């Protein structure tokens, strides 16, 4: 299933320039004004940049994809021997984790490009589009032919980087990618929900195994208790971080949906305030991620 709907990208770059850009710069004074804009940047786009930056930070959290197969391996370490921890199941989880990681990479690269388009410094924007296209081809969400076409459309003509030009590009980016963003965040969110449950299930199994160990080895209680407390803390942290990732993905999807619905239809100040609201929520989520305790 294609991840990003490149078939929806119908804007023609040449006609775009003819209708929206070149006519605005037919006077020499416009070029002077343009130079001023490029030098001073576009501060009213900062909320959108923050929204993209914070979303990319959340989407780039790798804890869940890394731990998805590892959680089955831990069950084996606890002494569990059922079919759900067979090598086939672990291999399948590893495959799923790779897909999850690729989807996260694509989403993070998209959010980064979203932020990059609005940033004061545009020197890295083309590289961000290249990174986005690499992420979507690595994840087999699009072909290289499709991404080449999209790169032509999205790469920046820095000399035309007025606020109006950026806003138009931004609208195009957000509206075009919104269905894919919604689909990707839902799919990722579902995997995260399953993972959160799986870690909870692991906690329950671990607690049960610890209780049995306590009954069988009463003289080793102090050691068992220390190991149990450390493992409990690690599992709780993993679960809380995964919940944060799930919440962050939901907020990103909601914010992106609202931006797609409003951008170009309301005053840009309203769009910016929507972006700011969700950027703040995403920042709060980012700051709540916790480092894992060191395993004993």
């Amino acid at each position, binding site marked *: 299933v294609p991840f990003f709907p490149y078939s929806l990208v119908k804007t023609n770059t040449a006609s775009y320039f003819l209708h929206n850009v070149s006519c605005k710069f037919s006077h020499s004074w416009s070029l002077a004004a343009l130079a001023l804009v490029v030098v001073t940047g576009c501060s009213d786009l900062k909320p959108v940049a923050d929204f993209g930056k914070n979303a990319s930070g959340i989407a780039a959290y790798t804890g869940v994809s890394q731990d998805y197969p590892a959680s089955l391996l831990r069950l084996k370490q606890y002494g569990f021997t059922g079919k759900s921890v067979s090598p086939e199941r672990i291999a399948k989880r590893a495959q799923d984790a790779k897909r999850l990681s690729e989807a996260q990479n694509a989403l993070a690269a998209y959010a980064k490009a979203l932020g990059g388009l609005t940033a004061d410094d545009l020197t890295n924007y083309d590289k961000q589009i290249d990174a986005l296209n690499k992420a979507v081809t690595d994840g087999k969400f699009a072909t290289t032919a499709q991404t080449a076409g999209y790169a032509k459309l999205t790469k920046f003509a820095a000399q035309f980087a007025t606020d109006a030009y950026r806003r138009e590009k931004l609208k195009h980016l957000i509206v075009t990618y919104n269905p894919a963003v919604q689909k990707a965040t839902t799919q990722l969110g579902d995997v995260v929900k399953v993972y959160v449950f799986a870690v909870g*299930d692991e906690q329950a199994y671990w607690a049960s195994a610890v209780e049995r160990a306590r009954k069988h080895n009463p003289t080793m209680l102090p050691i068992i208790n220390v190991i149990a407390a450390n493992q409990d803390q690690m599992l709780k942290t993993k679960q809380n971080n995964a919940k944060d990732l799930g919440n962050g993905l939901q907020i990103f999807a909601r914010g992106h949906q609202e931006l797609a619905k409003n951008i170009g239809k309301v005053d840009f100040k309203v769009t910016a305030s929507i972006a700011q609201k969700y950027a703040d929520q995403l920042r709060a989520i980012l700051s709540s991620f916790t480092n894992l305790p060191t395993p004993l």
Partner: protein
Amino acid sequence: MRTITVDDVIELATKFKESEAALSQYWVRNYGTLPDDDLASLVAAENDLHDNIQELMTNAVGKILDDAQASLNDIKRATAAANDAIKTVTEVKKIITIATSLVTLVAAIYTGNLVGISTAITDVFDATNPAPAV
């Protein structure tokens, strides 16, 4: 007919997890009083249930339920009855029978065996409320 969603699976698995926890608590409460064979059977039943909950999480999303034969609510009611029984029943053999019937129910769900789900629900209710001896 309805398709089982991720949220459905998590809700069902949470109920089955309560059964797993109740089995574990029964084991702890009765350690030292039950014979080793019974304790081992309880652990085996708990492990079977745990194993099948994991399989449910991996395989049940997208499976079809035929509400005419057995609805999601029927499954939830049967599981709730089993959870109550495991917490209140004292006889170990009966607890193991209930756990076994739950394992069959979970397996029927994730394999998409519609007739099996219906039969397993009946078996769970039978295990929790057996007909009085005559």
